[in-house]
């Protein structure tokens, strides 16, 4: 999916011993949006924005170890070992020794000669990496200016973590004129470095520069056009996480040191096998307890009582992403945790006083095919006609931020209708739900409308799997064997009945599968499970939810 931006010049930061001035260059294709003010809460802002940066650049996907060097060495060594083993007579051994010595001196000489070259080569690649560093950032953060708050949003490279930093206007003083709206800013790693220089004894001027919108025509290149090709899966992930926020969920508070404890365990221990999950054990009126699998280490959050009404146990995966919160621990007063359910997105909202920081995590770090069909957050929830939709949108835009009750009252609409319209807008990336204030906010993710139909399903198989379940064409039997869940069932596809089977491990990963459809016969699991296996999985989800 192509995103086009046009910035006037680069975002610039001028730093001296006494002050820092940050000028963000906004996207001039967007509606003019600007803001300027002096920073008031220096250190919390610095830490929070750094945490946001950590999210932007984070990539928690599994990367296999690079063993090619060792393998090359072993191959070379193999001959020597072989020769050593094979040598029969003593003089052969002598000869080999001589040759080996000569070889090793030659190699040393070679290394000596080649060293400057290798060094220069490495340096060159480093240089390339440094100069093109910005190419590694997938999408620049989005800045939204609202009458009560200014917030930054971003999504990680691995398509699994969402971050939002909201600052109310106490964070700034001497706020001059501003204009509400959403814009992208030109963002670079240089900017991150400059953020690190924020101190409370330095004046920090923060400016989303409106001058970019002024028309200027000279021969010099004052505008920078950026075209970013963002993977559709990235956008889908972003929308899924933000629409997950609108779903009612289990909520409780944590002490900052509880998060410290979680990070502590994760830093201290490294899991070598699954399940890599956190099991939240919630009992009404009792301290929140969590269990880190597979070691079953228990953390009891003694100062955080669960205030919900029913007992609950929720497992979440991809817990290493919680390390993104590490930098916030000292500056946070408390964390609010929002869990949608096992394997579903979760949210951690840090309360920094005048700032709030939301970390949203998708169900798994890797949204690959082993999790497909596990949830469908982009499914339409309520049918609202387009006129009403429009009315709700325009109504919300008047205030920029409002909760559903007051919006429904103001517009004279039913609350359900307003809610339906707003969640549809959330799915389309035009509105977000603010977990901190429990209100909806206008936020246009992209300048142009996103192709929602294309985004809803990752592929055609997922779509038809969903259809099978909707049409009740799936019969399912769930069994367990060796701790793995086995799904067996029949799926009626047109006039054929196909027998599919899927084995899911404790991490809810698809281990193996079988089906007598053509897709499976041709590809096995190489291209992911077939539509019938996915249908089984969706059917299981439906069943357990009921």
């Amino acid at each position, binding site marked *: 999916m192509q995103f086009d931006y046009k910035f006037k010049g680069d975002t610039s930061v001028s730093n001296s011993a006494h002050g820092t001035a940050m000028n963000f260059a906004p996207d001039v294709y967007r509606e003019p949006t600007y803001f300027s003010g002096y920073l008031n809460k*220096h250190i919390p802002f610095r830490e929070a924005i750094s945490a946001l940066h950590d999210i932007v650049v984070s990539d928690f996907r599994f990367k296999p170890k690079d063993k090619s060097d060792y393998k090359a060495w072993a191959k070379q060594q193999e001959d020597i070992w072989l020769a050593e083993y094979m040598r029969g007579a003593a003089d052969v051994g002598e000869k080999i020794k001589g040759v080996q010595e000569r070889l090793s001196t030659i190699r040393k000489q070679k290394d000596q000669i080649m060293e400057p070259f290798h060094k220069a080569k490495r340096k060159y690649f480093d240089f390339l990496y440094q100069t093109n560093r910005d190419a590694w950032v997938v999408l620049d953060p989005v800045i939204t200016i609202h009458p009560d708050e200014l917030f930054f949003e971003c999504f990680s490279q691995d398509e699994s973590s969402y971050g939002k930093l909201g600052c109310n206007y106490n964070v700034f003083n001497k706020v001059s004129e501003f204009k509400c709206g959403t814009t992208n800013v030109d963002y670079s790693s240089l900017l991150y470095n400059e953020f690190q220089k924020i101190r409370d004894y330095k004046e920090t001027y923060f400016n989303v520069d409106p001058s970019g919108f002024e028309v200027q025509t000279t*021969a010099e290149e004052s505008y920078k056009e950026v075209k970013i090709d963002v993977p559709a899966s990235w956008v889908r992930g972003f929308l899924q996480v933000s629409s997950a926020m609108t779903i009612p969920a289990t909520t409780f508070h944590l002490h900052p040191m509880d998060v410290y404890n979680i990070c502590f365990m994760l830093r201290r221990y490294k899991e070598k096998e699954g399940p890599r999950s956190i099991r939240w054990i919630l009992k009404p009126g009792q301290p929140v307890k969590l269990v880190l699998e597979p070691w079953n280490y228990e953390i009891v959050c003694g100062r955080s009582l669960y205030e919900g009404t029913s007992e609950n146990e929720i497992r979440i995966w991809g817990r290493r992403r919680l390390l993104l919160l590490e930098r916030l621990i000292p500056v946070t007063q408390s964390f609010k945790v929002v869990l949608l359910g096992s394997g579903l997105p979760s949210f951690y909202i840090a309360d920094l006083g005048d700032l709030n920081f939301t970390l949203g995590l998708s169900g798994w770090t890797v949204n690959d095919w082993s999790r497909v069909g596990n949830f469908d957050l982009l499914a339409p929830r309520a049918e609202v006609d387009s006129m009403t939709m429009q009315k709700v949108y325009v109504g919300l835009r008047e205030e920029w931020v409002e909760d559903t009750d007051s919006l429904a009252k103001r517009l004279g609409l039913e609350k359900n209708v307003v809610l339906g319209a707003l969640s549809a807008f959330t799915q389309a990336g035009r509105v977000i739900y603010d977990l901190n204030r429990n209100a909806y906010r206008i936020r246009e993710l992209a300048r142009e409308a996103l192709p929602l139909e294309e985004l809803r399903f990752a592929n055609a198989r997922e779509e038809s799997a969903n259809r099978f379940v909707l049409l009740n064409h799936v019969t399912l039997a769930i069994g367990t064997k060796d701790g793995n869940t086995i799904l067996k069932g029949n799926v009626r596809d047109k006039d054929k009945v196909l027998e599919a089977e899927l084995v899911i491990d404790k991490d809810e990963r698809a281990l193996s599968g079988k089906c007598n459809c053509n897709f499976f016969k041709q590809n096995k699991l190489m291209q992911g499970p077939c539509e019938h296996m996915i249908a089984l999985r969706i059917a299981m989800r439906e069943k357990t939810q009921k």
Partner: protein
Amino acid sequence: MFLLSDHKKKLYGRRPVLIISSEDKRRSPFSFNDLSLKLRHDTSCNPAVVKLVNQLKLYFQEGTSDKVYEIDLCESGDGFLVNFRYGRRGAALKEGTKTVFPVPLAEAQKVFAALENEKRKKGYVAAGEAPIITASAPATTKTGTDKRKKAIVKLLKAAAAGEEAEHWQLSRIIWRAGDLKIKEAIPYIIQVADASDAANIYSAVWAIARCGTSDALGFLQNLQQNKALPDHVKHVVFEAILKLSNDKDKEMLLNNVLESLPRPFRSSIAKKDVKQFKRDLHEFLFELKTASNEYLVGIYQLTRNDIALHAVFLDVLSQIKFEHNYFKYVRKIFKVSEMLQDYSTYGVIARQIDKQPATYRVSYWMTPEQKQQQAFSNKTKSYLSSRIVRQLRKYGQANESSYVELASQILLAFRDDQDLTPPYYTSQYTYNYNPETRSHSSAEKKTHFDSYSRYNAFNYILFKNSARYRQVDDHFVCVPPYEPGNAIPMVREEAFPHLWNDAFDEVVELLSFSKVNWVHDFALKVWNANATFEAQIETLHIIRFLHAHATGTQQLGLSLARKKYNTSQPDTLLLMAMLDSNLEEARTQASEWITISRSTLLADTTFVTQLFKMRKVEAHAWLRSTLATHALTQTQAEVIIASVIAYLMSIEHDTEEDRRYLNQVADTVIISLGEFIKNISLDVIRDLFKHQSSDLHTFAGKILMKHAIKPEDLPEDFLNILLASNNPNSRSLGISLLGNFPDQLLLTKKDILVSFCLSPLADVRNAVKPIIMRLTKAYPDFGKALVELFVPAFLIKESYEGAHDDLLSLLSHELESSLHIIPKEKTLVLLNSRYRTSQVIGSILLKKTITTDDLSVMELVKLGNNPIQDVRNFTWSAFQRNPEKIKAAKAEAIRITDTDWDDTRIFAFDFFRNTFTVSDWDTELLISLCDSTREDVQDFAREMITKFFAANQGAEYLLKLSQHPSSKVQLFATAYLDEYASGKLEVMTSLKLYFITLLSQVNKGKVAKARVMDFLRKESLKSEDVAHLAAEIFTRVSVSIAITERAECIAALRDIKKKFPAVQTLMAVKEFNDYVRN
């Protein structure tokens, strides 16, 4: 049976019983025995045949009869046998012997000769021979045809009288009458024509169109009024009327046709604009793909009387794919061409029918609608293909001269470069089971297909009587032992050789124009067999032979030329053809002949002009060398030049070959007549420039280079045409002409020169460089103006890839001396630009024009971060030379450490270490240095802080460094705690976040944590206010699950509680007497 001689194998080779497939075996286990029995029976009349001495195959063709008679002379034991076989060609032959027992050789030969003679008398001939025209044979055929014609007329006459022929349909009779062009039958045909019977009326009109006269027009016009006629009949009626009408009516009819055509054709055909017509036709047929191609028929009607247009039409016709919406009209044209005996069109379509693959296979379940969307099925293809062969055969059998006309046109439609298919073979494996060894053995039988094997009509014409090929289904396959590539037999192999023997015109046409080597081989055989042909030959033919497709024909042309040429009366056309020939021998011969009468020949300007028109490279090489040694007079040269230029302007210049030819002729003019073109009139050159061809512009440019006129006097438009040309040669000529201008004039043409410098064409840029160099040297102002113009271009994106590099080389070489005029600000902008080339030009400017005094410290610092080493060096030396200046602006100067370049940083550390003293450093400076995000800079800053630390600065360092995000610096700051925070509540309050941060480091910062814990614990016991603060921190941190941290927090809280019970903690203290730990 396995001892059979070769001869015998050949004898039975065609018998199907010889192939024993495993399948056969299964069907009949006894077939093996059957076979041997049969063989024994067959050989019984020819006992002990050993060796074939002589064999003769004779053929007989007449009417539907096509027979073969083979005579063998065999050695058998001590005598000889004469055996014979006869029968229909291709079928199993009957056989017999003339000698029951072996006889002596002489006698056997006698019998052999007698038998041969007998058969030859009957009209048998050997393959490739013309039938011996005996007294009776032609008479019988003639009367045969006549008889046939008479019978047809008689039948028609009877039909007109109301008597239906019993065994022959009337419409077929009418058709046959037309086919044989029986004029006498026309009146009867008109009488029996029945408009209600489509077949009848169609045949009638067809016959009238073939051999009728204008008398029949009335009948046809009446028919035309009949609206009930089917479309295809209406069409032939119109064609017939068109053929029979007089010129005036014809013109009117054709005008009507013209009006019905799509608009573009109307003008191009009416104006006979061949090129436009060709373009339109291609556009309509192959690009626009209009819904109906009906206009093709109209175009055929209009163009068939105009050679040029017709050639275009045929060319297009040979490219049309036989698809839906195309084939329908092609078929119509095919029918009409047959009717009108337009064999050139017929030939082209005949080739197409064999060449084009069938677009679909008919299957019985196809609905008519489906068929309607298709055209040219496999059935249609095979029907039409065999129809053409049948047509040929019928003409041939009727001894009609139409046969050679038709056959030669079909052959002419083929071209080696388009139709020659590579030979291939298919294999058939036969498995034999041997019950004795109980094993199978396999034999591979290859069937070879030679080139052109799929063209039925082509093969029929060329190889009907060949022993090499025979037709199997719709292919001609090789008859073993012949394989593709084997030597070609010298005997004639074509069908109806006797017809070809009378066809001098057709043979000459084939030799002249055919593009197929095999056709030349065939035609040469015919030529060689007919000694009379040579007497009829004309010079024009020889010239055509010399330029023919096949080498053999060229050689024939040469030998004919040698016979024909008369040295005393040189034939210039022949000489030219020979000079322009492919054959080196011919060229040498011609140049020898020219040498003999050189003076007269070369004085003949027409001849020399003609020589210029030769096409071959070798011919032009010869011409150039010949003219170099021959002195032409001025008048002669001018005449030649004028006519060659006129010729060049008249020829085509569309294809690559045309352009090569044009340039070759033009170059020969320049090379050979260079000295004479000095004074050529400018009008002539203008005409050349006005011509469309850019090659002629180049030619004009070359003339101008040699011309006596001064460049500045040249008309401006000449130069503009050359310079704006798409042709690189023209452009470089234009620029070299420009280079000949006097400098003053060039200065006024600055814009042109600038546009050349920025041209995306490398040749233009390179060509203009020397001019720029010359002008800049002579007029520095010119160079300055260019520099001012070019330098800003570096700041914009390149207009083409490499533009910056080109400009850079221009500026750093040709314009180097003028660079100094660029102001400082511009240079800095260039240096800070993101394009490498502009940085490079900036660095050149920096070295040339800027001194360190010109730059502020801020600017120097920025240059220290430049990717170009020289620029960074510049900053370093500036720093070293002006320490005072640096010290004056130290806040800016220390920012030099904030660079991506290690070398600059290392330099900076050294510089500050050595140059800055205590008085130069202050806390602010050091802290801002420490604020850097680079670790090495932080280290350096800490080093400097330690070195220049003064006691009064401690508190400031502590407060400011404590806010640093780096844990290293935070740890560094703990060192100041004891000294500068102890006992100071305000300081400690402002450090609260710092304490919490240090204590919240996950799984790290052991030292810092210990220091802070210790410090807080100590301090908290000193005053109650501090205790409040510390208790808050400890309470927060005590949640940690790290046991040491937790324990320390609890211990500290316990102590606080003990000392200041009023301090609020979340802790309840329980005393245990038996366990006390300090």
